[in-house]
């Protein structure tokens, strides 16, 4: 185990944390890029320390792609109106995400989410 690998693991594992002076590490994500995802919810992990939302997007003439989207924990989201039962599999959602840097994995960190028939969590600025 090298120091570099240990450090890399910390970085890749960095969990978001917002303080009075928000400091986050999203080294795995390209925070300068935004991708809009329009699809159908296939799974929700509404859990500590991070919520994961899986959205299936049909690909043109091909296989559907599932995007894994990371958001804050229930302590953040429930206060914003996204409760444990707010989303269910089959719901259509629009998500604005910062994609993974590596470009291999389909996923990202959630910038904003338009909930069906409800408010938008985060700031929707594509």
């Amino acid at each position, binding site marked *: 185990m090298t120091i570099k690998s240990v*450090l890399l693991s910390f970085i*890749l*594992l960095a969990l978001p944390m*917002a303080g009075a002076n*928000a400091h986050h590490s999203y080294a795995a994500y390209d*925070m300068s890029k935004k991708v809009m995802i329009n699809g159908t919810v296939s799974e929700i992990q509404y859990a*500590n320390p991070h919520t994961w939302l899986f959205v299936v997007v049909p690909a043109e003439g091909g296989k559907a792609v599932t995007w894994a989207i990371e958001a804050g924990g229930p302590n953040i989201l429930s206060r914003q109106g996204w409760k444990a039962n707010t989303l269910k599999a089959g719901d259509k959602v629009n998500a604005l995400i910062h994609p993974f840097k590596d470009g291999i*994995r389909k996923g990202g960190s959630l910038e904003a989410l338009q909930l069906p028939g409800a408010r938008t969590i985060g700031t929707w600025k594509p």
Partner: protein
Amino acid sequence: MTWTAHGLEELHFEKVKQMKSTHIARAAIATFLLGAAPCLAKAETAKAPTAKVAVPDISGLWTPVGSSVDITGGINSTGADATPSGIGPPFGSMPTLKGKYLESFQKRKKMLEGVGSEFKTSCKVLGMPTVMVGPYAVEVMQTPTQINWAQEYLRETRRFYLDGRSHPDSEENPPTFEGHSTGRWEGDTLVVETVNIRQETTLGESGHADDALGHSPKLRIVERIHLIPGDKLQVDGTVEDADSLIKPWHYTLAFSRAPKGDEFMEYVCEDNNAETIDPSTGAEITTIPERRNITPPKP
């Protein structure tokens, strides 16, 4: 071995005398003799013969101003929408370190910059003073003789003893992350002094010092906590450490009262569902189906 990392934040103090027998302590004793419930502390304190003024009631749920849980402040956050660089030091100011403590800080900074991050944390509690810039809600429980300050993040709780006790002998008692805090009311201001803090905690940073050179054993933090207009709570910190600081370090933090009905929520770091890389093998061990068995990108 599985590592998890978290965002980090940072913190500050001032000097107070050791608490002796105060009006509040006597009032507290009177309160208990009367069999009054602790929640009536404020009223009972006012009635107690030796008390001159009622102390403010700072109990309740508070959220760091501008944080992802600051609903009162109109924040609308997904909890994953921040920019990587942040917006400045977690405490708003940085201490002026010296000697081996400065070298330790610079070494940490360089290592983190080398891998493109500003912090490294684990599920280890933040400790003082970092817990004061913990990112989530704070629950304050107040009685005449003790006030508890609980940060939702990692469920970390500080205890301020207001019964007049002294700090325990630091030769007999090992240092702790939260240190030992005694407090007293000076008018409408709660003055808290904290000492005997583990040297892994850092000053002005979000994470820990793995080399235990975050500060010296002389670290002493004095906080002046008071209500301010707009139903907010302000913490003015002064940090003294003759061995690690060129001069005392000051910081100011503010908290908004959470909306009525909002409750302290459980945030469990150990219940990790985040992307996880085994540092010994480099293999991804995750519960996220889409991300299993994918070779992590080369650094």
